[in-house]
């Protein structure tokens, strides 16, 4: 249809493009150029963000001479899968994975249970001093872990928890400021009428929490689980301080142990790196909605 439009214009005007139109064409050309540059910059940045991963994967398949080649080699001549095979036998990979998962699973359970209860108390019950106490919760968000690290260590040492998983699990059953904040924001958005109606029917606060609020909050609870999962999985400092026995090591500690050896085997380490990272990237692909909602929620509603 559009192609035929100019033909409908009077004959003598056909060869000149009207001024306004000219400006428009100019503008749209400018716009197209602009978009081109935007895509160009975005694609360059994306490449820069992806490159380290490709480098890791490529490294995990290289022989040790190829690793140190200069100029670097991107695609190894022979794919050296033995790096992976050796990675699983060079150190107790499966034991360390199991240990890591024990911490991850229990800390996730703790995070969901405690923080949803606490957030309910900070959003759905209108008690005196509530908002003043909540400021204390927010204040703890701004405290670096290092401030309490030493006394926590001494405290846990006193009760014989050093060298066990308790220091890495138990505190998660007692709330985390970030998650409380996240869940509180979500609970506040649930219409009052729902809980009021349940209370009319004789439900007490706990029933409302359990039967009305929690079922509506599955997406945000998923976000909490995912965040806690990632945090516990990638944590390094916590296990380093609180675990002393080799048999209890997490994957992170095990890998660091190999790295600190003289002349570590880098191809093998890169294979471990791939094996450790791939699962969480796959999880992310399936659950990215929850990640992104969780992050934007705290950043903008704060």
């Amino acid at each position: 249809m559009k192609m035929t439009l100019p033909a409908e214009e009077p004959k003598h005007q056909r060869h000149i493009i009207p001024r306004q139109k000219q400006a428009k064409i100019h503008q749209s050309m400018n716009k197209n150029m602009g978009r081109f540059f935007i895509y160009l910059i975005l694609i360059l940045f994306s490449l820069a963000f992806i490159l380290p991963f490709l480098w890791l994967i490529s490294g995990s398949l290289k022989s040790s001479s190829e690793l140190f080649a200069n100029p670097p080699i991107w695609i190894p001549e022979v794919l050296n899968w033995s790096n992976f095979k050796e990675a699983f036998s060079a150190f107790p990979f499966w034991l360390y994975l199991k240990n890591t998962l024990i911490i991850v699973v229990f800390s996730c359970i703790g995070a969901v249970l405690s923080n949803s209860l606490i957030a309910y108390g900070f959003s759905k019950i209108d008690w005196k001093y509530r908002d003043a106490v909540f400021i204390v919760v927010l204040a703890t968000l701004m405290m670096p872990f290092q401030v309490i690290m030493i006394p926590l260590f001494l405290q846990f040492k006193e009760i014989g928890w050093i060298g066990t998983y308790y220091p890495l699990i138990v505190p998660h059953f007692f709330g985390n400021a970030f998650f409380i904040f996240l869940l509180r924001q979500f609970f506040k958005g649930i219409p009052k009428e729902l809980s009021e109606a349940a209370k009319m029917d004789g439900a007490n606060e706990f029933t409302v929490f359990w039967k009305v609020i929690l079922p509506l909050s599955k997406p945000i609870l998923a976000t909490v689980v995912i965040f806690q999962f990632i945090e516990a999985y990638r944590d390094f400092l916590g296990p380093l301080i609180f675990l002393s026995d080799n048999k209890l090591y997490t994957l992170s500690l095990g890998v660091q142990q190999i790295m600190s050896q003289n002349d570590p085997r880098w191809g093998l380490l890169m294979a471990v790196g791939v094996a450790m990272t791939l699962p969480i990237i796959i999880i992310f692909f399936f659950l990215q909605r929850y990640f992104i909602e969780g992050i934007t929620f705290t950043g903008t509603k704060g």
Partner: protein
Amino acid sequence: MNIQKRILRNGLLFISPWIIGFLCFTAYPMVSSLYYSLTEYNLISEPNFIGFDNYKQLLFEDDLFLTVLGNTMYMIIVGLTITTVVTIMIAILLNTKNIKGMSFFRIVFFIPTLVPFVVLAILWIWVLQPDSGVVNSILGFFGIDGPGWFSSPKWAKPGLILMTIWMSGNMILIYLAALGDIPKSLYEAASIDGANVLRKVFHITLPGLRPAILFNSITGMIGVFQSFAEAFIITDGGPDNSTLFYSLYLYRNAFQYFNMGYASAQAWILLIIALIMTMTFFKLSKRWGFED
């Protein structure tokens, strides 16, 4: 029991896990850390009260502590500023109307934040390898002789800043969400008044992003103070103490030299610095605000 009291009781019951946790895992440790900071304590013999000696030594006699403070401040002032500029730029570009492949870009920028710290270390040791690393070979392609990165006292911190930018997907997502909240009508009005892109960025976008910038700056600052694994694994504070950061030095004093009292004093100084900086960020954010 009257209604007010019952509501109070219910509220406290629900938040009771937090109250217990706060007392046991935050408040009590803070107070006891204040006590330890006034003692000499090596875990073996009983803590020995020495008043403010630890603080005096840290602030006036420990040259290394000044180096550590300088390194950490460098990461906050230089590193965080660069990260903020880059992340805002990416977010603005992503926020352009009808960008195709938005979910792809979001995934790409976010995935690095999921990588375990040890893997991060392995990755970046290799990416920034002076002779056979990716970055230097790309620089070499353009005829630039790449620096020694983690093996050079001058370039180790910039190397870590590159790594920080790579891990700042959270910030990009937060800026992106904040950009979405700026009313379109503001831009339209500015266009009618003939404002160009730069004017729009400085007079509409940045003021609109102010709360997000404040949030990211504070969490970013805390993040710098907490960052430990990177320097511990990759450089172990070196070369020449150029990457000896606050939490690494604190860790060494506590768990390698077993000076628990000295390290506790360091922890308290950290708390005070973090408080002052948070307040400064709030003040700055107010001063640079355009509306409200």
